[in-house]
């Protein structure tokens, strides 16, 4: 079996790098990393149940791409969406509480890890049917276009989704109608345990996207600055009326597919190879080389992340469970409910 392709060569640090912004990006990645580590820990204690898909290793993707989005833009994500949810600003406590099945959870305990929603932040959820979010993203963008709103819809999906019929259909429809969708292809090389070359005949996603009439680019998903720059460029193109754009983010998950996955399909050597390009370690090294990050700075950022995650766990622990009386509450909308304001 072919070992998955490495990311493109590092694009190098931007000439002008603002210290505060660099610290912000690092803080965001650390928040996600530490959050996910603690999720694994409380999962083993039985406090989180069901499926749990961790984002460790892919932090630069969510953090970098999120910098290109504005408050009114919409986000559609996958079942591996804790990173996007945190980077979008959903409080860590309500995400943790959701996974604890608590009434303070962002989906009040009805969705769990795979279905985080926060409509005030236009976070339209994690979709656990692979590629199932793509048509919804196309529709959100269609609504924006038909109502003359200058917004974009960012749609995260994985390499497994690119084999689904809904991927083909959504590429075609978004291109046909020139809809403002930013397709964010998180290529971590594996559809659950199936390496991409074992499942898809054409691995060149830029070529595939262009086949649908969609402009596309590939970026090193382990380099947060490169991701941010590419995402900003892509979003700008869409905002200026260029129609949909596909950005491939080459990344890798350091953990198994889910907590239930014994991870038998990858070699240790392959995992170690990618860990050498850990997006957080890589960024720290670069910032230090440029003397933009002191030990005290890093300790501060790490301390912030640890405290935030501990507070999230405390909040989830202290929150009341969603009452059984609420079981049927949200199956249908009460008819007197006012219409949603998008």
């Amino acid at each position, binding site marked *: 079996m072919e070992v998955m392709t490495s990311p493109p060569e590092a694009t190098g640090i931007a000439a002008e790098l603002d210290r505060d912004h660099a610290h912000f990006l690092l803080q965001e990645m650390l928040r996600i990393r530490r959050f996910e580590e603690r999720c694994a820990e409380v999962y083993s204690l039985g406090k989180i149940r069901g499926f749990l898909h961790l984002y460790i290793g892919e932090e630069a993707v969510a953090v970098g791409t999120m910098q290109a989005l504005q408050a009114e833009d*919409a986000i559609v994500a996958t079942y591996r969406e804790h990173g996007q949810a945190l980077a979008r600003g959903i409080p860590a406590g309500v995400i943790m509480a959701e996974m604890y099945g608590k009434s303070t*959870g*962002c*989906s*009040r*305990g*009805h*969705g769990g890890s795979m*279905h985080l*929603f*926060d*409509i005030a932040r236009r976070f*339209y*959820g994690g*979709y656990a*049917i692979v590629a*199932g979010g*793509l*048509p*919804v*993203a*196309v*529709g*959100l*963008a*269609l*609504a*924006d276009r*038909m*109502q003359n709103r200058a917004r974009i*819809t960012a749609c995260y999906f994985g390499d497994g989704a690119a084999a689904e*019929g*809904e991927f083909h*259909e*959504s590429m*075609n*429809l978004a291109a*046909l109608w020139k809809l403002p969708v930013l397709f964010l292809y998180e290529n971590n090389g594996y559809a659950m345990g199936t390496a991409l070359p074992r499942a898809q005949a054409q691995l060149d996603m830029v070529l595939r996207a262009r086949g649908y009439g969609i402009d596309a680019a590939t970026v090193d998903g382990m380099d947060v600055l490169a991701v941010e720059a590419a995402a900003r460029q892509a979003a700008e193109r869409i905002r200026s009326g260029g129609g949909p754009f596909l950005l491939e983010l080459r990344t890798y998950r350091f953990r198994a597919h889910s907590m239930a996955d014994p991870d038998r399909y990858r070699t240790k050597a392959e995992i170690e190879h990618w860990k050498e390009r850990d997006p957080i370690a890589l960024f720290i090294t670069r910032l230090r080389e440029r003397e933009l990050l002191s030990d005290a700075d890093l300790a501060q950022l790490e301390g912030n992340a640890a405290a935030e995650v501990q507070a999230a766990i405390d909040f989830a622990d202290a929150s009341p469970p969603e009452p059984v009386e609420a079981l049927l*509450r*949200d*199956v*249908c*909308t009460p*008819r007197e*409910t006012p*219409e*949603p*304001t*998008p």
Partner: protein
Amino acid sequence: MTTTTEKPSTPAASRAATVTYREAIRAALREALAGDPRVFLMGEDVGPYGGAFAVSMGLLEEFGPERVRDTPLAESTFVGAGIGAALGGMRPIVEVMTINFSLLALDQILNNAATLRHMSGGQLNVPLVVRMASGGGRQLAAQHSHSLEGWYAHIPGIRVLAPATVQDAYGMLLAALREPDPVFLFEHATLYPMEGELDPAAGAADLDHAIVRREGTNATLITYGGSLGKALAAAERLAEEGVAAEVIDLRTLRPLDMDTVLASVAKTHRAVVIDEAWRTGSLAAEVSAQIMERGFDLLDAPVARVCSAEVPIPYAKHLEEAALPQPEGIIAAVRGVL
């Protein structure tokens, strides 16, 4: 797929008139498009073709390609795009050509449209209307003729409608557009050329109640959609034999109005359910079970069912007729419970 060509005539908005079922749907579409800028129609061949069943004829010319929007043959994605557009503040009406094709969109329907409100803890709702043709009787064989609306009626989170009359074809579509959650309308394909009275002034129809279409005292016939005409024909012939059958049109298949059904059974003490779907696991089974659960003591005979034969719908006319419920079978079932 075949189509029927017909002049795109529609009655004046305010006067009662005799129109076809398809004209009634078109009148509702026109009224909705004219009255609400958020409403748009999309689906396969709804534009220049005028709809596979000629329902949207003339609407493209009147409302333009943004609001009468042809889609590629991509059921899953155009239904999913309808969900997204509904989330984004529009009021999409999605036309899926036939119910068999809707299976390609089941992922979006079940996993997204029906679940988003619940999964999001009540943050979202999906005001989406999906229309499609259902049922057999046109010799289109086993991939264009099925009655699967009972499957849809199995799904919590959506509303399932089966208009059986011209007035309901109009009024139930208008009412569907006022619903906050996804609504699925199943239009029996043999009904499109059916003529009937339409009073546009009646406006949006009530979606909460079944209707007694014919009163009687000896047995209750419970049906919906394309089988209503057959049940009424059977009741007419039974009347000649001195049997007064009451005929109930369910209209809304989810949620079911069992109160109307049970009130009738309390009067007749006998029930026959007529459903063009297959018998096993059918809506007829659900209605029958609920009569048993809530009205066991009302019954003087077991509930009878008249359903399609358990076979993919065949092509040849005589075979198809044998597969589908017919008035003769309904009459025999009524005699069986008397």
